[in-house]
């Protein structure tokens, strides 16, 4: 009997939770705000689903209802991706070490 592919995905999911657990505990507390903005940006990888939804309707009428929801999803996720990564970048640029004595 074959293993259901769902079980494989579920294994990936569980292992990723553990990776997340250990990785996030090692994040320095002073970077918790950038952590939130970057996790926000990467969770917008949901745009993958929105792109599939937007592109794969029937080709005669692109403005089918499922497509429109896909387009809206792409729009929202794109705001998040650009906004999230750029604001993280902006914050991280500000973290500087003490200047060495002149």
């Amino acid at each position, binding site marked *: 009997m074959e293993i259901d*592919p769902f079980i494989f*995905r579920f294994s*990936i*999911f569980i292992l990723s939770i*553990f*990776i*997340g*657990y250990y990785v*996030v505990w090692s994040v*320095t*507390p*002073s*970077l*918790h*705000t*950038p*952590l*939130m*903005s*970057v*996790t*926000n940006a990467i*969770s*917008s*990888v*949901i*745009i*993958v*689903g*929105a792109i*599939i*939804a*937007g*592109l*794969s*309707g029937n080709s005669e009428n*692109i403005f089918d209802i*499922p497509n429109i*929801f896909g*387009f809206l999803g*792409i*729009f*929202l996720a*794109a705001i*998040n*991706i*650009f*906004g*999230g*990564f*750029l604001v*993280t970048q902006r*914050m*991280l*640029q*500000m*973290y*500087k*070490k*003490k200047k060495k004595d002149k």
Partner: protein
Amino acid sequence: MSINLSAIFYLISGVLFILALRGLSSPETSRRGNFFGILGMVIAIIVTFLSIGNFSSDFIYVLIILLIGGSVGAFIAFKIPMTAMPELVAGFHSLVGLAAVFVAISAFLNPESFNLGILGNIKLASLIEMSIGASIGAITFSGSIIAFLKLQGIMSGSPITFKGQHLLNALILISIIILTYLLCFTQSANLFWTLIAISFLIGFLLIIPIGGADMPVVISMLNSYSGWAAAGIGFTLENTALIITGALVGSSGAILSYIMCKGMNRSFFSVILGGFGGTEQSFSSKSKEQKPVKSGNADDAAFLMKNASSVIIVPGYGMAVAQAQHALREMVDRLKKNDIKVSYAIHPVAGRMPGHMNVLLAEANVPYDEVFELEEINNDFSNADVAFVIGANDVTNPSAKTDPQSPIYGMPVLDVEKCKSVLFLKRSLSPGYAGIDNDLFYKENTLMLFADAKKMTEDITNNL
């Protein structure tokens, strides 16, 4: 592009996201980490386009929408002031939640294109996964909107409670489960819409009873939800990148919520059930008025600090409200010129989101190696001459250590009272969000500075 090849690329993008979070373990590696994150996202998007292989006019539409959304996001990212970061993050969470809902709706209405079966006969597992994704996404959306409104000050930060609130919430949560169950048998679109609608409602109801100062927990919690929603959709789409990311974000948010709760010595459930801050208001208001308080002006404060050899600064939400971080840095520069040692002490729940104070200090060009966490610096207070408390209150309250009656008893606090003298910069004697009096105000070595944080800091600088 073959399905196996694209799966490998999605895996690579998942790994890059892990590296992005790993980079945040120190500020030096964090910028490279962010680059990995961007790379992972670019790979995921390109692979999706290639594996669909539809480069007709639809592709152009999608690209245009992506770029419009992207420019909106970029515009916000460059314009937003650092003090508004909690609102921004709450707003962004709501977008992830809503995007998850939209993808789920689209998959429900057009399951063929996602290989999930046909309309009205969707595979059972997919239907469950998409219901979970849609439901959590909707909760994230409406919850984040409320958090956003509260942080923005459009909605009052005080908790909104009514009778039977918890019962109502419990009933709605149960009905979400029942609806999901029924949906699996009937595949009815109406049930699906109802499910989404009541999920929006419960997200709203769950956040309104939570007070403004519990926002660090709420934001982290919604961060976690947005991750689980993404993971739910990831299972529906059978996409590894989404599953990995969802799990990472979900556990990240959960850990941050845990850290925030621990910083307040409150259980996660008591925060979620809400209502904190409203009920304890009557507590300890009896003897408040009689106690004498020493208050001073900028001149006194400058004199004290000039004669100190080490100063510890304790910033809090009040500093963010007054936008006093730059003025504070200038004051510190002046102190350093006089060979006074200055460090900053950050309580885990200072501000309205995890790490809020650190970002503001970084914005004001404070080197991050002068900024310390509670455990790192707490022993230094007894050796310091002056503690300068700017816009913080409850996190310095000694009654958390001494008074078992206090609502914040057991909460870890900064040992500010061990300093030789304490300068307390605050607008008035009003208690903090917990509604409790701070004994520190009446201590002999405490000098209260009643003023706007920014103005007072500037005045002190001029007197130094």
